[in-house]
Structures are given as structure tokens and as C-alpha cells.
């Protein structure tokens, strides 16, 4: 694939999923598959996966305060949150609908990816509790949940692994994280002169 063709390609994807810890892996795999068509390097791929993992984890545990999967795993209880949800008779929400946590119902995380001119843009949104002070939350090693052994490195990793990071949040409304990163083609792609 030559560089010009690659740069012309535009693609978009949107994924909405339950705010449960087991979906962190889903979000990583989805963004990796999405970005793979522009042949990112292995390093770029793991950078993007790390940044998405951090943002989605934040939405789940800080935004919605959902610790279910994290606490249950390894305690002899099925960790498959989706199966549990089905067993409890929760219906699927309308497409694109995300809402705050209600009793007996998971909140939703929305991930939107856009690829244009070799630049990946990712938006991760939750309608959770939001943050009073975004600047404070973004400080390295600052965490509101030392009890969960959160290292406070989440936003630092997003900043380090992506080219640009913007965070919007309001208490009681939710949080939107916007990140972008320029992908350079992997070295194994021959470039036509």
C-alpha cells in the first residue's frame, strides 16, 4: 500500500459497551483491529492499546464506581459479567444509548474511533460521576482510589503514549477523553516511489 493511498483512507467506528472491567480487553482489541489497516508499528499498536485501556478503566472504576469484575474475579464466581447480566434478565439498550448507573444496571462506556490522514482519534465517554478538578486528576501519581491500588499513572500514560490528550469533565455529568496519535506505516510495508 503506498503512503498516499493510506493517507486518503478515512474510517470511523463506534462501540458502546457495559461499564464492566472485563470489557477493558474488548476495547483494546477493538481499537487495535480498527487501527491495524494503516499498518502501525508494534510499538504504536501497544501505545494505543495502553492509552485506551487507561481511559476505559477510568470510566468504569472512577466514572461509574463499578468494581464488580475486579472484586469477583478469582473468588469462585463466574467473572463473565455479560453472562451475569443476561441471567439477571437485563435487556440490551438501544444502540448508542449510554446512561448513568442505576441500581441493578451497568452504566455504558462509549468509544468512538476515527482514522483520517494516518491519524487516529479516539473519544471515550462515560456518563458517570465526573471530576471536580481535572487538572488535579491528571497529576502523576494522584489517585482517588489508593484502596484499589490504582497507581495514579493513567493520565500520564495516556499523555505519554498519544500525541494529544484532552479531558472534559463535570461532576454529575460525566467525562470525555479525547486522544489522537499519528500512525507511521510499519517498516515492513514497501513504499512505492
Amino acid at each position: 500500500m503506498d503512503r498516499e493511498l493510506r493517507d486518503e483512507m478515512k474510517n470511523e467506528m463506534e462501540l458502546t459497551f457495559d461499564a464492566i472491567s472485563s470489557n477493558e480487553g474488548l476495547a483494546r482489541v477493538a481499537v487495535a483491529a480498527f487501527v491495524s489497516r494503516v499498518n502501525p508499528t508494534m510499538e504504536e499498536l501497544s501505545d494505543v492499546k495502553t492509552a485506551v485501556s487507561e481511559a476505559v478503566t477510568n470510566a468504569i472504576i472512577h466514572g461509574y464506581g463499578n468494581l464488580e469484575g475486579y472484586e469477583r474475579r478469582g473468588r469462585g464466581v463466574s467473572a463473565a459479567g455479560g453472562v451475569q447480566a443476561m441471567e439477571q434478565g437485563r435487556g440490551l439498550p438501544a444502540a448508542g444509548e449510554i446512561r448513568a448507573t442505576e441500581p441493578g444496571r451497568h452504566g455504558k462506556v462509549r468509544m468512538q474511533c476515527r482514522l483520517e490522514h494516518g491519524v487516529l482519534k479516539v473519544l471515550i465517554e462515560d456518563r458517570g460521576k465526573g471530576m471536580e478538578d481535572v487538572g488535579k486528576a491528571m497529576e502523576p501519581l494522584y489517585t482517588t482510589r489508593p484502596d484499589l491500588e490504582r497507581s495514579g499513572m493513567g493520565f500520564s500514560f495516556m499523555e505519554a503514549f498519544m500525541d494529544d490528550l484532552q479531558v472534559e469533565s463535570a461532576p454529575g455529568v460525566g467525562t470525555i477523553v479525547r486522544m489522537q496519535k499519528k500512525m507511521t506505516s510499519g517498516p515492513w510495508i514497501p513504499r512505492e516511489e
Partner: protein
Amino acid sequence: MDQFQVIDHCLMVKLPQELDHYQAGYFSREADSFLLRPEVCHVVFDFEDTEFMDSSGIGIIMGRYKKVAPLGGKIYAINVGKQVARILELSGMSRLVEVL
């Protein structure tokens, strides 16, 4: 339970392929139950299978470090791949952990 093994005075922890928040709770809790044994002083994290780690992994390492360091224990990391190495480096963990 071959993810955890005590060899000499070391607790060997074999970490999973994807080490995220979902996996972290289990490994922290299990490791801590082994650290209660008086013969266990050091922790060796084996990253052989680990292809992905995010800041949750840093939490696991920091948490165990706080437990063993006051008693003179050390934290080691073995079979560290590229992605994990970057995370350890960037978070400053490489100062607390001896990467073998």
C-alpha cells in the same frame, strides 16, 4: 494454582497474558495471601506470558513493594518484554524493581 510458587524465600508470580485492572485484583489478593507466610521475603514477577500491561500492573508491583520492602525484601521482574519494559521505565518502577 501454578501461577504462584514459593521457591526458597521467593514468591514466584506468573502474570497473565493481559495484565489490566480486571486481572489485577486477583493477583494482588493471591500474592498477599502468600506473603503472610513467614518464609517468603521476596517477590519475583514473571512476565513471560505477558503481552500487555497497563497502570494496573504498576499498582500490583507498588503494592507488593510496600509490603516486602520494610522487611528488607526485594521485587524482581523476569522475562520482561518490550511493552512491559516501557511501562516499567515510564512509571519509574525500574528504580524499585530489579529487572533480570
